[in-house]
């Protein structure tokens, strides 16, 4: 082997080693600053991590677009033909028995009735529901910021994620604290001019308008504050349906 090719191999090897350790260091720094999503492993990990990191640097405090009243859709789409049976039973009862529990890393685990939720600070927003399938509609959403609900229970310092559940057994999601504390992340109970219809998620739907529709779960009844997602589908933080944890795309 000639000297030239040996030198070439040496310099290339050094460059590759420097590159790899650079990536490793960048990964450490990104993790320390909360720029790595829970589903960062696997073949699609790099793309998802780049998107999440870029968005957390760019959009941490940005507000989802809000629209004028004239832009509210006259044909909002529920993506559901029938509400679940237990929701209909609660509806017959006027949702008097519906509870929203706040658990996990909180000072005072709490359970709220619909009346309790309605007494909290009331906010409204005209935002877009955008489904990963491609369709969308603009509606007015009325409710209370998730952060006000969480503050009632008192968030403990190590909190990193909020996991939230639908009364439908296979629908649950989680978000980071940037989205959990975001002023537009609302626990909604009304839509446009009336109560939130059951097909649209009534009595309670968590709206996360900076992410796709699958993160805005219907029939919200349980919220868990946590510092890790280990016990939530082995760290994935959402069901194993193949969709990305971060839905901000």
């Amino acid at each position, binding site marked *: 082997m000639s000297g030239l*090719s040996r030198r070439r191999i040496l310099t290339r090897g050094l460059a590759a080693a420097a590159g790899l350790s650079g990536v490793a260091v960048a990964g450490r720094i990104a993790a320390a600053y909360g720029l790595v999503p829970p589903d960062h492993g696997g073949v699609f990990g790099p793309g998802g991590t780049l998107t999440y990191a870029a968005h957390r640097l760019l959009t941490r405090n940005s507000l989802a*677009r809000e629209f004028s009243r004239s832009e509210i859709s006259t044909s909002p789409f529920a993506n559901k033909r029938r509400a679940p049976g237990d929701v209909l039973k609660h509806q017959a009862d006027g949702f008097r028995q519906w509870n929203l529990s706040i658990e996990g890393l909180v000072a005072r685990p709490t359970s709220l009735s619909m009346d309790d939720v309605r007494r909290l600070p009331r906010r409204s927003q005209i935002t*877009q529901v955008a489904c990963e399938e491609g*369709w*969308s509609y603009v509606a007015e959403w009325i409710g209370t910021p998730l952060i006000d609900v969480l503050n009632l229970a008192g968030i403990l310092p190590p909190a990193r994620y909020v996991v939230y559940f639908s009364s439908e057994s296979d629908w649950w999601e989680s978000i980071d604290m940037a989205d959990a504390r975001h002023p537009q992340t609302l626990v909604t109970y009304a839509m446009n001019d009336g109560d939130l219809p059951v097909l649209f998620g009534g009595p309670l739907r968590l709206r996360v308008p*900076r992410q796709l529709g699958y993160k805005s779960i219907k029939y919200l009844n349980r919220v868990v504050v946590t510092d890790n997602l280990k016990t939530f589908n082995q760290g994935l933080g959402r069901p194993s349906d193949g969709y990305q944890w971060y839905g901000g795309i």
Partner: protein
Amino acid sequence: MANTAVGVGRAIPIAVPHATPRHRATVRVTHWLTALCFVALLVSGLEIVVSHPRFYWGENGNVLMPPLFSLPIPASRSTVPTGYGYVLPDQNGWSRSLHFEAAWVLVLTGIVYVAFGVLTGHIAKNLLPANAARPPDPSSYNPLQRLVYLGVIFVAFPLVVWTGLAMSPAFVSAVPFTAAAFGGRQSARTIHFLLSLSLVVFVLVHIVMVWRAGFTARVTAMITGRSSHQEAE
């Protein structure tokens, strides 16, 4: 193979008659990375569009609204009226992940290519129209080819990325103009689809032209860098 280097043990072939290759290494690598990304984006994009093969204009668009146009194909969602009596399997999980990962590679590759192209004069020499200072080079592209390449590199690809970003609720929260410029999310989605169709047409014509110019020689030139007339015979 013709024109292998004289001498033994050299890591790379050298001393070919023409000092500069037809395509430089950066052009070759970015070309094939882009080609790979394009295939990934096309396949995953088709899977994604199958979940809702209807297109709209403005902000709102769903099955309760009349579409601007729709594709005459079955859908992977039972909620979409297609006229077909069956529903295709949902493949959106991996499709979306692949789409966004390939988009990242495409954008980063594009940045490297354009930076290289500007700094080395590749774009000025091979793509900008010839003028008095740069007389036409018969071994390079003709005026129509230059116009199409410029359009694909500086108009179609940037616009397809832009309209893609316009569909990101988080990105648009930071840069609302991304979606507003097109009149809304659904308009951006429709333009994204039409642009991808135009890029498919470009790729098909591109392949036909490569075929007519001598497929093996041209593809070899894009892989090894060696010019076709060195390769011919």
